[in-house]
């Protein structure tokens, strides 16, 4: 109960009632306030034409939602999930550069990975590696755009926007597509842009810290003034709508204020970790009270997933001081340490809550890195071959799809282009990538352009 109501000496409920009695103020917002007072009652969710209402998939889905982990700059495949003993043996010959991290066998399937990501590697039994990824461009901006939108040249809607457009979302009090990113990667806001899709589908950026979403906190200092303002707005709007009873635009706008009003409560609750146990915080490597760091991003991702957000993207670093290890591969060390335990914690936490099977985790980057050195200790960009992985959401656990050659230079078998990767993600969500189309500028557009094949081999 707010300070004001206590001060005024009567209950909030009485106060709310008197507001109605005193003037024409309130109705809709009042319903909401009363509903939240009486707990059990559900707010009258106006199910009017809502573009974000859940939509059925094209066919039964394996995954209900996606957590998309994107690492900017280009994570080296040969130093992480695709180790190459021969490369290490040839270190120094023909400009080849051996790895600083030692290959080991992990899990019950005998999968090889280095100890760059020891916690993730220890979870390989839950992960499906794809060691034969390739993309069309060898520069950051273009390949970042490619892995997010399917286009390496022109701006197009992001995969998160496509999924939001295809499936809607489960929780109408939170955005359908949220991007938790302390900094922006290459291509800036284009990575989560709705582009030509309607704006409902644009990613909402969450910036780790005390104020993760813009304008989320009421600016009016006295409690309930905002509710009263909205009550007045509603009275004005109702009168106005009376002249335009058929306008869905006007009705939708009224509804958006009700949603925003609830989001002011719902979203901060999602960001409030005080109800998490010490054991859970420890899984993500988090200290109590911490409001940033990759562990925070991962735990928030789980909480948003629980609350029905359809597509959650995490970006660990920005467009510089990232995985772009031209100078020295050793820079991968601290970057890996930053994300390793939190990601393993996320997998384990989803698993223990029974959420992993319906949540698709995607781990990817822009491209891999060359087997040869660039400067003496670093590697250059390598789009011909790299590794990404999937977990949960209907993919084969503990499986390895595709292979690179013995130096990690070219694909040896079962290449997976970014279009194929996207087609597969959509398939797991019950969407046919050729049927998820949007008409724009006179033709139907797709995430996968005119290409893409579902990689059935990775599906359980």
């Amino acid at each position, binding site marked *: 109960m707010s300070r004001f109501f206590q001060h005024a000496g009567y209950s909030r409920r009485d106060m709310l009632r008197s507001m109605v009695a005193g003037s024409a103020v309130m109705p809709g917002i009042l319903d909401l306030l009363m509903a939240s007072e009486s707990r059990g009652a559900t707010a009258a969710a106006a199910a009017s034409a809502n573009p974000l209402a859940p939509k059925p998939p094209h066919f039964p889905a394996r995954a209900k939602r996606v957590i998309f982990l994107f690492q900017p700059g280009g994570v080296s495949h040969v130093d992480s999930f695709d180790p190459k003993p021969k490369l290490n043996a040839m270190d120094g010959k023909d400009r080849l550069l051996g790895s600083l991290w030692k290959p080991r066998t992990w899990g019950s399937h005998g999968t090889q990975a280095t100890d760059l990501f020891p916690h993730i590697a220890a979870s390989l039994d839950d992960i499906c590696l794809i060691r034969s990824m390739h993309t069309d461009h060898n520069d950051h901006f273009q390949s970042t755009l490619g892995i997010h939108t399917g286009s390496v040249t*022109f701006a197009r809607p992001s995969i998160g926007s496509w999924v939001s457009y295809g499936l809607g979302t489960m929780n109408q009090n939170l955005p359908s597509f949220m991007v938790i990113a302390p900094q922006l990667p290459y291509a800036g806001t284009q990575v989560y842009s709705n582009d030509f899709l309607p704006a409902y589908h644009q990613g909402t950026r969450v910036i780790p810290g005390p104020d993760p979403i813009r304008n989320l906190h009421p600016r009016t200092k006295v409690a309930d003034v905002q509710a009263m303002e909205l009550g007045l707005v509603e009275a004005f709007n109702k009168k106005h709508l009376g002249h335009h009873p058929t306008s869905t635009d006007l009705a939708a706008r009224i509804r958006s204020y009700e*949603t925003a009003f609830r989001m002011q409560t719902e979203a901060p609750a999602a960001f409030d970790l005080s109800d998490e146990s010490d054991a859970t915080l420890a899984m993500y490597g988090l200290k109590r009270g911490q409001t940033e760091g990759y562990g925070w991003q991962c735990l928030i991702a789980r909480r948003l997933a629980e609350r029905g957000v359809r597509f959650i993207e995490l970006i660990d670093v920005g467009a510089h001081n990232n995985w772009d290890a031209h100078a020295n591969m050793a820079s991968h060390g601290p970057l890996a340490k930053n994300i390793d335990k939190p990601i393993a914690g996320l997998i384990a936490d989803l698993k223990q809550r029974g959420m992993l099977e319906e949540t698709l985790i995607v781990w990817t980057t822009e491209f891999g890195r060359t087997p040869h050195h660039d400067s003496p200790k670093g590697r250059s960009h390598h789009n011909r071959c790299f590794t990404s992985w999937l977990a949960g959401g209907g993919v084969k656990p503990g499986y390895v799809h595709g292979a690179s050659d013995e130096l990690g230079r070219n694909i040896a078998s079962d290449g997976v282009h970014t279009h194929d990767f996207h087609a597969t993600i959509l398939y797991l969500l019950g969407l046919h990538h050729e049927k998820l189309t949007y008409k724009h500028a006179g033709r139907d557009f797709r995430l996968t352009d005119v290409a893409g094949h579902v990689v059935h081999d990775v599906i359980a």
Partner: protein
Amino acid sequence: MMKRTTSIVCACILLAIAAASRAVDTSKLIGVDLWSVKPVQHVEPPADGEAAKWSSNPIDRFVRAAQQQRGLTPVKPADRRTLIRRAYFDLIGLPPTPEQVAAFVNDKRDNAWSKVIDELLASPAYGERWGRHWLDVVRYADTAGDNSDYPVPQLYKYRNYVIDAFNDDKPYDQFIREQIAGDLMPHADDAERREHIIATGYIALSRRFGSQVKNYPQYLTIEDTIDNLGKSVLGLSINCARCHDHKYDPISNDDYYALYGFFASTQYAFPGIELLRAQKDFVPLIPQEQADAKLAPFREKIAAEQKKLDDLLGQRSKAQKELTAAKNARSKVKDDADKQDVDKQVTELTQRVDALRKQYKKQERVISSARQNKPHIEDAYGICEGKPMDVHIQVKGNPKDKGPLAKRHFLTILGGQTLPTEVKDSGRLQLAQWLTAKSNPLTARVMANRIWQHHFGVGIVATPNDFGNRGKPPTHPKLLDYLAKRFMSDGWSIKKMHRLVMTSKTYQLASDNDPANARIDPTNDYLWRARVRRLDAEAIRDTMLAISGKLDRQPLNEPHPFPSPDKWNFTQHRPFKAVYESNKRSVYLMTQRIQKHPYLALFDGADTNASTGQRDASTTTLQALYMLNDPFVHEQADALAARLIDGAKQDTQRVRQAFEMVYSREPSEGEVKMTLDYLNQIQARYKAVGSDQAEPRRAAWASLCRAMLRSNEFLFVE
């Protein structure tokens, strides 16, 4: 301001058309029956019957006749307050002041309405509003769109050129020609030359790509030019013919590369890029001789540094060849001692190649910084002549895969005009003339439709950038042709079109619903009432500033406060990123390509990467959060509250004033009472809390203003 050159240019057009006609084979094209490529018909508005009785305005006659066929009846005319608010937002994007509303409401003369229209068309704010519509179409941004998103400080000149062109009612055909070939057009004086060069900013502002100077993807920039030219002027998706013949419309792969040649023959100003962090090839606005003289030492220095760079490249490739040879030799050597020699040689050569690579990169940086110290001359982000050429078809859009040569010509379906033999330059002037020839069926139709769309919310063709087979067909084909003809015969005057449209009864209808009509035509395609439209991003922001009294109406006649060019070190790792606050109209906000402007993105602002023919009007929760909690909204509400409190002595008067300012109407007695009750409640609340709000009264008024700014009546125009 009408230019003397117009008539010269018109004469040129006739000559060009006469000289370049050729037999055109359209048999291989797809979709040749497309309505929009057929000649614009001369049609008379229905002259008798109910339509003619209803109105003498030709638009009304077409509209009413179409309604009659469907059994629709127009609703009543809008009242004067609704009408003036509609006119203000349509023409200048700002609300009328209470005084302006009162003057119109009380003006009983017959010409009261046309006087309002004329006043608005004469206001500089008109160009700011309608110029913005054109900036949408040409995907204007203040940055280049390459991986580092280099800023282009000079682009404000093009933006202001567009605003001025609308204010001056520059004939639309001339406006198009200047933007495509201003540099090649005759000019009466230096001022006109300058204006023409700035106009070519339209071509220069095509998107830029990548980070590198070597293998710079100019073909993508040219694709963007053609894509935009097609959509903006012709309403055609020409770029669909880049990789193959267009699948739906009569545009061949050859047509695409025939157009490509005009732009391959053109030099675009270069805005800077990660590996060359300085502008080059900007077009001087001072006379060329003066510019040459001033730039001579600079150019010499650059040439000398460039020569060093070329030398380094030569040395490097020589060393690289030697290295390859040495490596090959090593595999053939048997003797151990010889092997050691060769190994030593390989090591040395590897080191040399590495060293040369480093020197090369260093020299690139030397050139970059030398370029950053270019002597200042006034210039524009425009284009000039390059090396005239025809290009080969790029098979499947791959620039490395050459197909047959495509000689420069105009779209086959629109006549296929070729360049007269005496034309030895890029041919852009001829292209501009073909585009704006009165025989071209698309240019006038497309623009007439755009004007219509911004008055009625939806065009006669609902897909303003696509008049192709996949676009929507016109709801009123005869009316569209009438408007297109009239547009051309009225000297391509956009202001005359506004007058014609706004003096129609159709434009002046109320937005009332009518169940009988709604059953027949639920989407109001046949205009039996006015559409209720949401304000666009600029109008929302500008209006809040206007009624808070904080709007700075002065145009921005200088570059945005970008960092100085000698400090440009933008890379794709650290791209240029900025948001510049301003209280000027939103058309003057700095917009970027890679980084969306946070406010404009929220309210469906124009796409800065591709032509926006029509804005979305989405309704999102984040917009509501913005209106609830953003400091900007609270600041405007506070300022408006202060204006209201200071502006009248009694609360009742203040409430009336609030309604007049925010909604352009008087409140009903019930609304006055409700509002006063509300103010009392809020004040009581603040007092009871003993909050730190210094003045509960001010706080209550601010609260009222916030509520009004969030209401639909504010956000929508009827």
